[in-house]
């Protein structure tokens, strides 16, 4: 096929030929982006995937630079350089536990960039080839531009709020405005109506009002959502930033942008879906807001009877685990908060030295972000083939001697299987209660997890509660194992 392509390009004039080659280059960039995501199907191919992504982006940028005469190359290259420095410094310095914030911050930039591009296209439509000679912008382009700026602006303002909530600069508590549903629906209707009106009247006021209202609705939509629900929001905004890119791709007839938009749009939507499904909540209920007020508030604990439970110390834990044949470690949000991953890895190494078989079990929504635990364990040098997904390890709990749960709670709660009234009913669960012994690391008996419910496993005969900060406890167990070893 590329043969006939060559011919057809060669047959046409020079300008068309350049255009054809540019279109091919953008298609190649799009294909490279597909391969980038495809690479993530396994850790082994993932780095090659990332390189494909970089190559695709380089192709897209170089093609654009070659096919457009730069009025001032220094400015453009300078702008790229400035962005590069800032981006690389941010990427180097960020702590792995702060990834949710970083992603939210990056999204806000994509959103704002989309707004800037759409605005530039509106002010100078000729440069984008979307206007006739009289300066009238094409109808289709107006709609695409309107959609692009609206989605971009929502992505920007929504991501800013998500960033502030995740970063702790703003209370995680949902902020409920009176009449918010009425205000939101009104604003949305305004945006849609004005985009439609924009097709008949390209006055600046229409365009800028759409922009302003979209910024506003982004704030309004995210403010009532609790901090703990932010990961779903971030994913949703990720999806939006994709659709914004796709809308700009329609305007510019650019294959790379359209493919990317669809990829990113699908990615965000699917991750949101995965999170909601694993939390057994509907997407609507997350977006409607007001649940999951604050991660560690424990407000939702409900009526707490005083049930007997067994306390334990780091020494007890070290003894029990060093005697065991199989130990499965279940990390959760508390491990991330306490940054306990390195101490945990050390503990596992010592156990392995004593001949204990150690595995990690990861629930799809352990932590506060998809893949949160995996990336932290990888950071602590845990080999990824010791880390198992729920469906691959769940039937091994029945055969294991010790389940070591550290900072996880909801993802081990058997109420999800039995109690129809529980907010987590129906969510898939790691069956730690089937292990011979369960060790539970958390700071207090009162503290609950994300869903705010008590966990029956705490009060079972075979359970020992190790109360304390996750990192401190893991360190103490390491000390005990070292002491006991000599």
């Amino acid at each position: 096929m590329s043969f006939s392509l060559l011919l057809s390009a060669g047959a046409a004039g020079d300008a068309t030929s350049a255009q054809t080659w540019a279109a091919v280059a953008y298609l190649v960039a799009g294909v490279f982006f597909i391969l980038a995501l495809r690479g993530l199907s396994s850790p082994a191919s993932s780095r090659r995937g990332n390189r494909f992504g970089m190559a695709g982006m380089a192709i897209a940028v170089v093609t654009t630079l070659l096919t457009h005469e730069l009025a001032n190359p220094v400015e453009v290259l300078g702008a790229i350089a400035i962005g590069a420095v800032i981006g690389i410094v941010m990427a180097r310095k960020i702590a792995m536990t702060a990834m949710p914030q970083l992603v939210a911050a990056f999204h806000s930039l994509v959103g704002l960039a989309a707004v800037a591009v759409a605005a530039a296209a509106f002010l100078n439509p000729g440069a984008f080839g979307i206007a006739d000679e009289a300066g009238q912008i094409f109808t289709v382009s107006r709609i695409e531009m309107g959609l692009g700026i609206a989605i971009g602006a929502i992505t920007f303002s929504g991501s800013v709020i998500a960033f502030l909530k995740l970063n702790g600069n703003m209370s995680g508590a949902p902020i409920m405005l009176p009449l918010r549903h009425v205000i939101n629906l009104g604003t949305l209707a305004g945006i849609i109506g004005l985009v439609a009106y924009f097709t008949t009247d390209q006055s600046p006021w229409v365009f800028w009002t759409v922009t302003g209202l979209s910024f506003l609705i982004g704030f309004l939509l995210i403010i009532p959502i609790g901090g703990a629900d932010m990961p779903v929001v971030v994913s949703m905004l990720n999806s939006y930033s994709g659709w914004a890119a796709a809308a700009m791709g329609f305007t510019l007839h650019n294959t790379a942008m359209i493919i990317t938009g669809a990829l990113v749009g699908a990615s965000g939507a699917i991750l949101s879906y995965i999170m909601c499904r694993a939390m057994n909540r509907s997407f609507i209920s997350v977006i409607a807001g007001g649940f999951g007020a604050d991660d560690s508030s424990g407000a939702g604990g409900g009526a707490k009877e005083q049930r007997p439970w067994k306390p334990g110390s780091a020494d007890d834990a070290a003894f029990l685990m060093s005697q065991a044949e199989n130990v499965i470690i279940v990390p959760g949000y508390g491990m991330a908060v306490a940054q306990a991953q390195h101490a945990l890895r050390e503990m596992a190494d010592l156990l392995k030295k004593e001949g204990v078989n150690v595995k990690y079990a990861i629930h799809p929504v352990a932590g506060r972000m998809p893949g949160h635990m995996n990336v932290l364990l990888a950071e602590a040098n845990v080999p990824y083939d010791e880390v198992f997904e729920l469906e691959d390890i769940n039937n091994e709990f029945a055969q294991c001697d010790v389940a070591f749960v550290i900072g996880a709670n909801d993802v081990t709660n058997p109420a999800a299987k039995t109690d129809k009234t529980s907010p987590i009913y129906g969510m898939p669960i790691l069956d730690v209660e089937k292990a011979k012994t369960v060790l539970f690391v958390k700071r207090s008996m009162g503290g609950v997890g994300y869903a705010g419910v008590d966990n029956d496993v705490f009060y079972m005969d075979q359970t020992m509660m190790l109360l304390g900060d996750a990192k401190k406890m893991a360190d103490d167990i390491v000390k005990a194992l070292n002491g006991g070893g000599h």
Partner: protein
Amino acid sequence: MDFIAIFSIFILACFVGYFVVWSVTPALHTPLMSVTNAISSVIIVGALIASAAAGSPVSKWLGLAAVVMASVNIFGGFAVTERMLAMYKKKER
């Protein structure tokens, strides 16, 4: 390209997106978020066109601003993904 061609490309790309994202292993969902972030900055193409064009200075400066923002994202997004992916290691045997 006419609208219907672009629209067809878009629809097929949605299918590709759907399948390729489901093929991502859950262990790499965090890098997936950061790499999609990086590639969504392909809107830098639009930003470059705006900043290259003569005619409207406001439009040019908006374009340049967008170039800066998009490149923060591109370089930051790919770099942080690379950093994360480098941490995923197999057991040494």
